[in-house]
């Protein structure tokens, strides 16, 4: 190894990234070259300082400030999967209010010239299907929204 090659490898030598064979050649050159010894001493001083940079401490009360600034809503926002629990409740409500719902639907169909169409009777099973469909739709929207928000927030 000549001086130029040693200068090119000196950083890898100090950070122990130089392959063993090249390390041996480097050492052999170093024994007889004062200039390269000086180069090695300088790079060692730089790398050693960079490796031992002190940890700086933020101002007292930093932890308190961070905790006080945390958005409180997160602990109140339930997972979107909890909305599944709403399905039976929603189905019950649709079943309970089936009479006004049927009347309302009949009025709506009549207004748009659909008087010839039969107004469907809301059965218990039908109420369950309507409720499940609403919940699944809500689940998709909230999950998609949450994923989008997290990704946008992290990207910035």
């Amino acid at each position, binding site marked *: 190894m000549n001086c130029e090659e040693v200068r090119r490898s000196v*950083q890898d030598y100090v950070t122990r990234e130089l392959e063993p064979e090249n390390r041996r050649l480097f050492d052999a050159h170093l024994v007889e070259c004062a200039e390269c010894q*000086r180069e090695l*001493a*300088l*790079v060692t*001083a*730089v*790398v050693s*300082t*960079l*490796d*031992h*940079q*002190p*940890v*700086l*401490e*933020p*101002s007292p009360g*930093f*932890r308190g*400030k*961070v*905790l006080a*600034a*945390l*958005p409180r809503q*997160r*602990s109140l926002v339930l997972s979107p999967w909890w909305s599944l629990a709403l399905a039976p409740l929603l189905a019950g409500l649709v079943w309970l209010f089936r009479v006004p719902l049927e009347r309302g639907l009949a009025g709506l169909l009549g207004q748009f010239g659909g008087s010839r169409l039969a107004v469907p009777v809301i059965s218990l099973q039908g109420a369950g299907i309507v409720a499940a469909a609403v919940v699944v739709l809500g689940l998709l929207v909230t999950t998609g929204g949450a994923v989008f928000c*997290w990704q946008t*927030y*992290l*990207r*910035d």
Partner: protein
Amino acid sequence: MFEHMESASEAALVSRSARGDEQAFGVLVERYKGMLYSMATRLMKDRGRAEDAAQESLIKAWAALPAFKGESKFSSWLYRICYNTCISELRRKRPEVELDEAMGVPVAGPVQEFRNRDIQATIQEEVSRLPDDYRAALTLYHFNGLSYEEIAKLTHRPMGTVKAHIHRARAVLKTRLVERVGWDNLKEVMWQ
């Protein structure tokens, strides 16, 4: 309860924090505040702004914790949030310093009676004069202990570029050290 929390494992604290436990998150803040603040200070060169950036990073981490799946180390994940926060803040506030400009800053002459801590202080000072890319790569490698590969992924640069930035930055620091301190003074300190 709180004392017990202080000695809890990182995985347990992360898991509790993800479920909204502020006390557990407070312990994580305590453990990482120094590293995040130091990293932000070195990237931003301004202690006031660095503290804001460290705080913002932790708030972002809190919000994103439910999405943290543990695919990387928690510390690496946190450093990534802090790095992104600092970089977007730097880009928002001022244009990046070019290498030629940074290299053109006049340096002080040799100083007598130099001591080891002065070498360290000189290098630290010169690190703060490096261009943003160089300073960021050096900080992530030497201070945060990330590998070239991790830095490349984090900074969206090829690994060869990251390695070249680190090598060139160290070479600049070495040149500056000799210019400012003088080889004779350095020799005295290094071989004393």
